[in-house]
Every structure is written in C-alpha cells, then in structure tokens.
C-alpha cells in the first residue's frame, strides 16, 4: 500500500515534470485549458470579495493560484521555465513582493510574452506604480488623489464625494470589448492614470468624462489638478511588441462582487440599470488579455511562379508570381479562419514596389498574384498587419530578383531588321568586291 502510494507519487511527479515545459509555455493555444495564472493578493479576503471575477476565469478553464503578495515562497519561474502563463496583481498596497518576485522579474515575465492584469487603488504603492509606468501608464503622482467626477458620478446613497464614477466612455473595439455592446456604465472607484500620446502600444479602454479630475477629495483643491478631463484613463490595455497583453486599471473595486452586482444610475441620467456593466466589461476585457480574442497567426507563407508549385530561390524581373498565406484567429479553443479584406502584401525593397490587397477564400487562405517589377535587387514579401486589438502580424520573407540571363533576351528584334539587312549586305558586298578586285584584270 505504502509502496503503491510512493509509486503513485513518483508517477505524478514524473507526469508533472514531463508536463512542466508545456505548463510553462506562454500563450499556448495547443493546450489552452491548462493555463495557469498566479493571482497575487494583499489579503485572502480579496479572494472572496472578488470571487465572481475569479469564478469567470476558472469556468473558462484557467487554473488560478492565489498567493499573498508577500509570500516568501513566491516564484515566477523555476529552472528557467515560467510556472505561470499569466499574472494578476490585485495587491495595490504591496511595497515589496515576497520570494523572488520583484519589478524586474515581472517585466521579464511580460517581455517573454506573458500577460498581466494589474489593478491599483487609492494609495497604490510605488511598486505598483512602477510596474504600470514601465508598461506606459502613469498613475497620478499624488498618492492620495482619486478620480472625482461631479457630473458623471454614480448616484448612490452612501457616496457623497463623487468618487464612484459611472464610466461609459469605452474604446470602440469589438475585439477588445466583445461584440456585444456594454449597455450599463461601469462603476469605477480609484485612481486615474495618463498615457503618453506618442506611445502606440497602449490603448485607453475606459476614459474619464471631460469634467473629471484627479485630486484628493478630503483636502481643499489649492492648485489645479495635474490630471483632468478625458486625458484621464481609468482602464488601459497594453499590447507589447511581443504581443504580451497587459491590463492596467486604477480601481481594484471595479473587479469586486459588490460593484458587479450593484445597480447603477449615472448622475443626470434617468435610466437606472439593474446591474452595472462591470461584469461584462471585466470579463470581456480579460478574455482579450488572455488571448481568447484578437490573436492572429499567419502560417504557410508560399510563393511561386504562376503555374509552378515549388518555391524558387530567386525570381527574375517581370516574372508572374503567386503569393499566399493562411491567417487564423484564436477563438478560445481552436483556430478559426480570419476573414478580412484589408490584409495587404508588399513587395518591398527599401520602399514598397508593389502593394496589393490579398483576397481570401473565407477559409483563412489569403492569396494574390502579381508581376515582379522590372527592378532587380533583394526584395521582401512583407505583411505588416496592425489592427486595433489584434496582435500585430509582421512577416517578411527575403527573395532576390535577378535581371535577365544573357540568353533570355529576344534573339531577333523586329525593329532591328534594317540593321541586320545592312550588315549582311555589307558583308556580301565586301566579299564580292574583294573577288572582283582580286581576280578581275
């Protein structure tokens, strides 16, 4: 019996070690149901106060690992392999993570293609601010400031200082927020952040209304607040260049069961929604963050001369060629063909010589054919497909284009017949002249 249990333990251990590399891959659509997510919380109460959000993740197949943020055994990776596919930080006040996690390891985690949900709150620690700043979201520097909106607040019995905001200024993107429109406003209580407009990787998903501002509600406003109006972002998402996705929210309460269930009435509006938009908003955006939507892959890049099947190593100028690529989108459990009519291929050498829309057959196969320009050089087939919310596709495949070979030119040119005639008649004439001159005495 004891022996059996040991054997069982060993086999479990072996299975685990075998599975470990699989478990620790970043976004791995091949085994989506085994994604592990580390949830760092300040205090185990959050596990229960935010259970609806966690439940929705778990029902979608994620394996959540709740740990206290200052747990001394925390580790993101072991033996060079990441233990988790995603990270949720619901610990706004943590000054220092336990174990081996710190700012740098979290950023490395993101830079190696893993996803992150970061929720801050009033009095967010420097560490949380730093993580957000590294991702491009700058929280208001005043630690006591919260977002206040005297016109867009949610009507409620208890909240008198208008810090519970009913936000309804969403980013217009079906990919990020789902195709179903969020009808009810989203309740938000927390701090605002600003984004650098030059930063192309970060998107404002929920912005504050134009009359919101960020300040400490308990003190008198002596100087104009640094963050005002719709420049304040309440919730932002970042898609890094390696397609890692990050959600930055200034409010931890936004994810809480209380606000999920709460009704909402926006100040100045007569409609009262029975249920706030939080649940839908947060669920949809978490789907996006964990790559259940908007993740594209391009495979099977093929090109060949028209009428041939093998890919040549080099093209000749003015060859006719066919180019095809298959593009699929991840739906959460398998790849389905991506259908769009705006995918373009460039035939590129320092600048695009040819820019063509790819036509698709509805099954993910995009193809086109064109004629190689009359310019030789080292070209590239380039696809640079960047659409809001989608992972960016950038493929480039180098292919040299050579000029004609010496025997590929026309043998006889019609326009040159007078020249042929003149040279041959000259030769004949010279021959006759020589004979006549030499032998005619």
């Amino acid at each position, binding site marked *: 019996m004891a022996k059996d249990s040991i054997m069982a333990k060993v086999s479990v251990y072996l299975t685990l070690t075998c599975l470990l590399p699989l478990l620790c891959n970043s976004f791995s659509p091949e085994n989506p149901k085994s994604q592990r997510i580390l949830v760092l919380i300040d205090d185990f109460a959050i596990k229960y106060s935010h259970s609806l959000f966690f439940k929705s993740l778990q029902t979608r197949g994620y394996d959540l690992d709740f740990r206290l943020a200052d747990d001394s055994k925390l580790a993101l990776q072991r033996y060079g392999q990441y233990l988790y596919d995603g990270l949720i930080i619901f610990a706004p006040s943590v000054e220092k993570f336990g174990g081996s996690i710190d700012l740098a390891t979290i*950023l490395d985690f993101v830079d190696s293609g893993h996803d992150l949900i970061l929720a801050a709150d009033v009095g967010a620690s420097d560490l949380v601010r730093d993580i957000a*700043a590294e991702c491009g979201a700058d929280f208001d*520097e005043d630690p006591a400031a919260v977002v206040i909106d005297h016109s867009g607040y949610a009507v409620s019995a208890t909240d008198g200082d208008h810090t519970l905001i009913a936000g309804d200024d969403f980013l217009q993107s079906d990919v990020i927020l789902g195709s179903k429109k969020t009808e009810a406003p989203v309740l938000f209580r927390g701090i605002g952040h600003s984004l650098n407009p030059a*930063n192309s*990787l970060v998107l404002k998903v929920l912005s504050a209304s134009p009359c919101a501002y960020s300040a400490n509600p308990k003190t008198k406003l002596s100087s104009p607040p640094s963050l005002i109006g719709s420049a304040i972002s309440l919730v932002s998402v970042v898609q890094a260049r390696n397609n890692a996705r990050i959600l930055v929210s200034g409010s931890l309460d936004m994810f809480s069961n209380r606000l999920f269930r709460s009704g909402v009435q926006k100040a100045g509006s007569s409609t009262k929604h029975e249920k706030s938009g939080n649940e839908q908003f947060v669920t949809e955006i978490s789907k996006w963050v964990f790559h259940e939507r908007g993740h594209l892959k391009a495979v099977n890049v093929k090109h060949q001369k028209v009428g041939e099947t093998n890919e040549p190593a*080099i093209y000749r100028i003015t060859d006719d060629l066919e180019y095809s690529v298959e593009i699929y989108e991840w739906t959460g459990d398998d790849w389905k063909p991506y259908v769009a009519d705006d995918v373009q291929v460039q035939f590129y050498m320092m600048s695009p010589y040819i820019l063509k829309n790819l036509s698709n057959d509805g099954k993910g196969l995009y193809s086109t054919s064109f004629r190689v320009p009359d310019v030789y050089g080292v070209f590239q087939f380039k696809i640079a497909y960047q659409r809001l919310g989608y992972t960016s596709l950038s493929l480039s495949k180098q292919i040299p284009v050579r000029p004609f070979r010496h025997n590929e030119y026309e043998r006889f040119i019609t326009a040159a017949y007078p020249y042929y005639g003149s040279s041959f008649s000259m030769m004949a004439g010279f021959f006759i002249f020589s004979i006549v001159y030499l032998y005619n005495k």
Partner: protein
Amino acid sequence: MATLRDAFGNVLSVFILILIGVLAFSIRLFSVIKYESVIHEFDPYFNYRVTQFLTKNGIYDFWNWFDDRTWYPLGRVIGGTVYPGLTLTAGSIWWFLNSLNIPLSVETVCVFTAPIFSAFASWATYLLTKEVKGVGAGLTAAALIAMVPSYISRSVAGSYDNEAVAIFALVFTFYLYIKTLNTGSLFYATLNALSYFYMVCSWGGYTFIINLIPMHVLLCIVTGRYSPRLYIAYAPLVILGTLLASLVPVVGFNAVLTSEHFASFLVFIIIHVVALVYYIKGVLSPKLFKVAVTLVVSIGMAVCCMVVAVLVALVASSPTKGWSGRSLSLLDPTYASKYIPIIASVSEHQPPTWPSYFMDINVLAFLVPAGIIACFLPLSDASSFVVLYIVTSVYFSGVMVRLMLVLAPAACIMSGIALSEAFDVLTRSVKLQLPELVEGTASTAEDTPSGYGSVQNEAAKSESSLEKLDDSLRERPSRKHRKKEKENVEKASSKPRKEKRLLVLPLVASAVAIFLLIMLGSFYVVHCVWAAAEAYSAPSIVLTSHSHDGLHVFDDFREAYAWLRHNTEVDDKVASWWDYGYQTTAMANRTVIVDNNTWNNTHIATVGTAMSSPEKPAWEIFNSLDVKYVLVVFGGLVGYPSDDINKFLWMVRIGGGVFPHIKEPDYLRDGQYRIDSQATPTMLNCLMYRLSYYRFVETDGKGFDRVRRTEIGKKYFKLTHFEEVFTTHHWMVRIYKLKPPKNRIRGKTKKSKSSSKSSKSSSIKSTTRRNPWH
C-alpha cells in the same frame, strides 16, 4: 663565325630570359614566405570570391551572376560589372591544372597568378624593347621590370588584383602594335586586336591603350611618317578591338558611346582621309592633285563640322560630358576633390609625392631622361611610341598614385634602353682600347659600326646588323619623300665617316663609368629586394610590428570575420564602411550594405550619414536597411593608423554630399579634426566615435588613443541603441549589434523611489525658481 655567335647569343638570351622570369616570380614570394599563402588586401578578396564562384558554377553562371550578398538590398550584377579577365585567367589555370590531376586549391592558384604574370610581363617588355632598340635593351628592360618596386607592390603573391594580369596585357598589346608597325603584317595586327581584347577583359586601364595608340598614330601622321604599315597597325585594331571590347559585358556599348573612346574613332577617320590623300596623290598629277585637295578639304571640313556638331550635342547632353568620373579626374586633377569625394577618398587616387616616385621606381627616375634621348637617336616609329608612352604615363602617374603602375613599364623600357646604350658604348670603348693597349691595333670591330660620338654628332646609332636591316626595311616604304631623301642623304654621308668618327671614350673613364653603372644597378637591385621583402609583402589583413619584446602579430581582421561567420545568421546584414565590404562577404560570408565596388554613391552616403549621426538616427537608418551588425575598425589601442576614425571625415563628406544635414564644419573645431576634449559635441556624439571608443577608457584608465596621440574627449558613456557583441584581441575590429526596439514603451514616471523623489524635489525647485514671489 657570325652565325655561330648569333646562335650563341640567342641561346644566351633565352637563358637570360628564363632567369629573368624566375627572378620576377621568386622576388614576389616574400609575402608567402614571411606571412602565409593568403589573399591580400581588399579587392583581391572579391576577385577570389568571384573565382571561387566561377570554378564552382561554370562560366555561364558566372556571366549571369546576380549577387544578393552585397549592396543589400540593391544587389549587384557581378557578371555584368566585373572585368572578367583576371578571374577567367585564374579559373582556366585552375581548370587546366585540375584536368592534369594537379589538385591545387583555387586559393593557391589565385595567390600565384600575379607572380606568374609578372614573369610574362617581363618577357613582354623584352619583346617590346627589342622591337624598339634591340636585344640588349630588351634584356635590360626585362631585368629591370622583373623587380621594379612599383609593379611588385601590385603583384606580390596574394595580390590577386586586375593589375596583376593587366600590366602584362598592356605591354604585350604595345609590343604587338609596334611589331605590326614594324612589319606591316596583318597577322600581328589581328593578334594585336586579340591582345587588346584581353586587356579590355582585364582592366579599366584599357582606355589608356585606346587613347595612346591613336595619339601615336596622329603623331606619326603629323610628323609625316604615315605609311601603309601604320594603317595596318591601326585600322584593324580600332575595328576589331572595338567589336571585341563591346563583347565584354562591363564595357558593352561604352566602347562606342563614351568619350574615352572618341579619340580612336576620330583618328580612324583622319587616317583614312590621309590614306586617301596619299592614294590620290599617287594617281593624280600634281596640278590635278591641288584641285582635288581643295575639293576634299572643303567637303571634308563640312563633313567634319557636321560630325563634330553631332558629337558635341551628344556629349553635352550628358552631365559629365560623356566621361567617367575617374577619367575626368585624370584630365582635371582637381575634379574629384571638388565633385566626387568618393574617388578622392581612396588613397590610391591621391597624387603621389616625390618620395613615392623614388620608392617605386628608384634609380629609373634618373635613367628615364637618358632613355628618352637615346630614343631620339634616331627617332623611329617605335621609339617615338615609347617616348609618347613615357610622357603620358608620367603625367597620369602624377595625377593618381595608382597609375604609377602604368609608368613602371615605360620607365623600365626607357632605363633599359639607356643602360644598354651606355653599356654598349662603354664596353665598346674598352673593347676597342684594350687591344690598343696590348697590341696597338684597333681593327677588330668591323661588325659594330658606330661609336659614342654618335650621341653628339650624328644620327647613326649603335645597332645590331639585324636591327639596321629592320630599320632600312622600315624606311623603305615611307612615302614622305622629302624626309626620306634627307635621311638617305644623311645616311649616305655619314657612312663613310663612321670609321673615322669612331669616337671612343678614354679607357679609364669608361671603366669607371661601367663600374658606376654596375653600382647603380646593384643599388637598384638592393632597393628592389628590400621593397619586395619589407615594404610590399604585407598582406594587410595580418599585421606585424616589432617592438623591444619581439614580434607582434595582429590577426584581428580574420578573428572578427571568423566570429561573424560562426556566430551570426546566414542572412544577417553587416554594415561597415565600404573598405571592409569585400572582405566581409568573402571571409565572413555575410551580406554587406556597401563594398569596395563604389558604384552607388547614395548608398555609401547613407552609410556615411549613419556613421556620422547620433545613435538614434543611426539606428533608424541601419534598421531601415535591415542591418543586424555594425563593424568598425579601431586602431587606437595598438596604433593602427588606417582605422575608421581616421577615415571618418570622408564619411562625413560623402554623407554630406547627398544628405546636406551632415555638415563637415560641425565635426571640426576651428578647422581641425580632433577627438580629444576640444572636439565638437557633434563629433563626440556621432555613432563612429561612440562605437570606436565605447569602453575604451577601461583599457588604460585614461583613454589614450595611440593613433591620434591624445586622450579621448568623452570617456564614459553608454550605448542605448547598440550593444557590443565582439571586440577582437587588439580591439582593432569591434562588432556591435543593433538592439531590437523596446518591447514596451515606458511612461514618464521615474522608475525608482529615490529618483522620483529627486525629480519631485527638482521640479519643486524649478517651480520656486520660476515663481520666486509665490
């Protein structure tokens, strides 16, 4: 008796020639003995790579070779832009040896091609000089050219460059031209055209031939030396030569379109007009002839005017007036420095200094004038040609140090003539007077008909009987009556006087002179051997230096290229200044942006601009060219003077020529180029400075640059867009990798607590400063 002596002399000449060949070959082997059997410098690496391709893929693939590993992303049509002569020569030698089951590697064949062709070149020089002044002069000239330093510098073993075979082709073409001119044989004329074809295949310097020969023909016509032999020597060369030349892909229609070739066509027309005039003159009576002349002249002038007008219109439509940049810089030495910095930037395109003349042709520089004088006594068609050759080549060598190479054979021929004449006279004096001393008689030298007095007194020169026969044969068909009569009269009058006028030098004087000439010769030999062994044998990819603790070998270049070959992806692109392009493609087998074939100025200017820009714009330029690695050559640690910092001003100039935001004065402090603390901020921030001196201060703690002999201006700095991936043992080559763009874009907030605090406090301070009364 005389025939026996002739036979003996011939056998001796053959042996001497063989020895000269051996000498020419073996004096060029110092580089192999001192270093190793390796390809030298820059261009030879390209030729070597092309030869490898040829031997691997055959001639048709070579002809149609589109190389996608250079000039990324433009690529280069190698088959159509390369002079194939050298490659085909070495390729055929390799193929021939392999078919004889002599399995030499391509590299070995390439290394030894130049020495072999130097032997051929000395034999060709012998033939040419023999045609001009006889066997003695020929042998002397051949011995001189076998070891002239100027030629050695371009043809040591391993210096696998076009010039290696081109000098042979040049001299041999001249020989065949003179041979045709002397014999009037159509056979030699055809050979001449073929030899010219080989020259066209081998080197862009063929334009020298196609301009020099027309000049000589024109000279002959103007000085009344027109003859059918001249016509036969010239007309087939132009027609056949031009047809053949246009078969070479790199020349193509240039053979009839560019201004370099116009002289030959113009002279071709002139020689026909002259031939017609001579023919008509022979047919018509003098009176009718005069009428005909006026007729022809008027019509001819009209036709000429039309042709000239058409030509001028054609030529003026091209911005460079139909001349290539290099040719223009030959005609106007200041042209390149004014308009084409890329030509001016090459050190071998600079005008030479007098020491370089002394270094490269040594005592020949003093013997050449004597040779010219000897050529005028008497002036034949052949000797006028070599005079013309030396005069033009002296001019060209004065413009470009590289063309010293064209001067060298001319100088050797002239010096050979001079030395041989001098020895002839002096030994004859000794020979005539020795018996006098012994027996008191002076009647031994019947078959050596002239003496030293000829130099001052008469046209009858020391010539072998065979030569004289040739000479008279040459004179016979000359149609210029007046001249010929005069010469005949002179000859006739001089002949009886010869015996009396056998002016000989005093015995002692001639003995001393012989001794001095031998000393001069030995000095020349010593100098040549020294030059071959010390000055010109370094392969420049391996450097050595002697110091108190022995010999140091700097093999950094190969170290760096080997690193690239083994540690980078096959399709990675490496950017460097164009000097290192050929070596990178040949040794590291990586794609380069620009290389030593400087055909696209804009592309080179792009790289120059990147090198002279600050890091971020430089990164953007390189990234747009898909560059992965940047290679810089840095000599500051070991004192290697031809590094990129010393070449940097050319990068600025070439870059600024195309992209005007790069301005040379920005890099100069008061007109001085410096990298110390006085250097301008632009200089200290440009990519080249940063890549060269990154971490340099760690070597000695001070950052002392041993080439510029100063401490560098900016010692501690970090690179933001580049990372160092490899630096060779002596820091001579440093390789950097472009960092990928940041995965995330950071926000504005400072990263750490303390810095955010400090920034806060500083912002507070600045606000208080702004509002002191608040």
